[in-house]
């Protein structure tokens, strides 16, 4: 079964569809809620333990540390939801979970327990659960029913069925990658790598990966297509090494500046370069972060700008941020422009992050793919992690007051 899938947790009251999985503030505990309401289901405490390290497997295997899951039917007790919710998290991490009203290519119907070794255990009343889900099985979408091997006899008929002992069997069936290397087994550098890998896995969770690279809301390509800096294509289609490689890559050749824009009549003006260390007068409508390649060879860069603080949580998550990436030729300039919340009368910190590399860097792409979901502290950690990997990162923090 492939494509975007909906996950249904089988219960004796009927099928409970996973409507949505949303990362929450890391200071919270994970919850299972009923259909978008503030009703936290009684299994929430157990679900939190299922997610959170050190007991939980979800954080370990997907990086989803604190989550809110919305289901459309109450799940009252027991642990039979574990199999379905684990699969839902894995699909979410792969960008293949059909959430809300997204169209689905199929349905995974599951009931079973999952332990720390990802062994799948049997549960009771599977036949009852299947009976209560008959309408789902009779529906238009193909259904994959997944239960523990010991429950194989109770599998529903007329649908694709899978009785498993280990989680890997269903992950393989769904064409999902096995869990990543566990962070405990590696050093700090390895932990960073795992973090980045998890970020990569989380990419699909937000539907951000596109054919041509990252396709994220608020993300704009820089003028040049993201081709490798050290290669040129010949007419025959083969790749040859360009002589430009003879010139060493110098990150310092790329300047990084902050630009403040003010209202020009009814529109926000183009702005001027300012000293980031100086807080200017109120009335700044936008802040841009500008990178200029003064060197003699192209630079691959990623530019991110965001208003810091809780203001983003009270507005749209992506409203006050912008991410751009691409190849910057010698002499060229790229920038991201962040609109400011014009109602704010107190100073706000606007953060610019410039990441430079000689070539396209998968680790950077992985790290940035869900940056809009990260808190300021988590971005600090991400930046430190990239620096640990030897990646060149520069930051600007500029204090402005938006409202006049």
């Amino acid at each position, binding site marked *: 079964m492939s494509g975007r899938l909906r996950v249904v947790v089988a219960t004796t009251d009927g099928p409970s569809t996973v409507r*949505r999985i*949303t*990362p*929450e*503030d890391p*200071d*919270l*505990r994970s*919850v299972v*809620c009923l259909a*978008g*309401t*503030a*009703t*936290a289901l009684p299994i929430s*405490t157990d679900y*939190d333990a299922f997610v959170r390290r050190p007991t939980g497997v979800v954080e370990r295997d997907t990086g989803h540390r604190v*989550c*809110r899951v*919305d289901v459309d039917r109450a799940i009252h007790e027991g642990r039979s939801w574990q199999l379905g919710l684990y699969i839902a998290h894995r699909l979410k991490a792969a960008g293949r979970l059909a959430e809300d009203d997204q169209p689905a290519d199929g349905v995974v119907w599951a009931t079973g327990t999952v332990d720390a070794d990802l062994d799948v255990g049997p549960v009771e009343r599977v036949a009852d659960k299947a009976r209560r889900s008959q309408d789902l099985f009779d529906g238009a979408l193909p259904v994959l029913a997944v239960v523990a091997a010991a429950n194989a006899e109770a599998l529903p008929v007329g649908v694709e069925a899978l009785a498993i002992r280990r989680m890997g069997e269903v992950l393989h069936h769904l064409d999902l990658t096995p869990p990543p290397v566990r962070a405990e087994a590696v050093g700090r550098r390895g932990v960073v790598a795992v973090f980045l890998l998890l970020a990569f896995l989380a990419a699909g969770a937000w539907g951000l990966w596109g054919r041509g690279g990252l396709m994220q809301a608020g993300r704009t390509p820089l003028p040049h297509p993201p081709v490798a800096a050290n290669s040129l294509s010949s007419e025959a289609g083969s790749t040859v090494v360009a002589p430009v490689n003879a010139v060493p890559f110098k990150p310092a050749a790329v300047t990084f500046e902050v630009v403040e824009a003010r209202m020009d009549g009814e529109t926000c003006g183009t702005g001027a370069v300012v000293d980031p260390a100086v807080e200017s007068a109120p009335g700044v409508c936008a802040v841009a972060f500008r990178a200029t390649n003064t060197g003699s060879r192209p630079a691959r860069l990623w530019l991110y700008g965001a208003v810091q*603080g*809780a*203001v983003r*949580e*009270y507005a749209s*998550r992506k409203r006050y941020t912008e991410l751009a990436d691409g190849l910057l030729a010698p002499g060229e300039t790229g920038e991201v422009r962040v609109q400011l919340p014009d109602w*704010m009368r*107190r100073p706000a910190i606007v953060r610019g992050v410039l990441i430079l590399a000689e070539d396209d860097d998968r680790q950077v792409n992985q790290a940035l793919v869900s940056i809009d979901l990260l808190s300021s502290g988590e971005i600090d950690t991400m930046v430190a992690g990239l620096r640990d990997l030897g990646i060149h990162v520069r930051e600007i923090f500029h204090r402005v007051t938006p409202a006049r």
Partner: protein
Amino acid sequence: MTDRWQDLDDGERETARAVFTALDGARALTDAAMQAGPSISAIWSALVTGRPLPPGIVPSADFDALLVDAATIAIPRQAAAATPDSGIDRQAEGARLRVIPSRGGPGQSYLTITFEDQTTGAARLIAVIDGAEPLEIALPVPVAGAVQLLLDNSEPILAALTDPDSRLFLV
């Protein structure tokens, strides 16, 4: 004082008049308290037995004093108003109370209370603002020293938490 009035001498009658005056004064005080709201004993009983607070309570210094006695932790007025920008974060010796917006549920927030001593707990949170009836909300059993509740932002107690003049009591 079982004697009849006519059997009392002048001194005893003076004593009786003083006692009657005192009793009358005490009754007047009690009646006044009754008119303003539930009795102190009814409030105290509700606090210590876990029953909901009786309706009609008018916050006063006495009421605050009762709450301080009954509460596990009392969080006093704060220095400045909380704003969505800064988030709601109130602390007192022994506990920290925060309100964190839900990313997954627009219009909903998490109320979290973290106890420094994990053996500490509270059954309810009572918010008191002068001029209004106190608000209370039942708390779940703490897990690892922390309580977490998901609330609609329309819950009045959330508004009370943002008021710097509100006193909070974990009872």
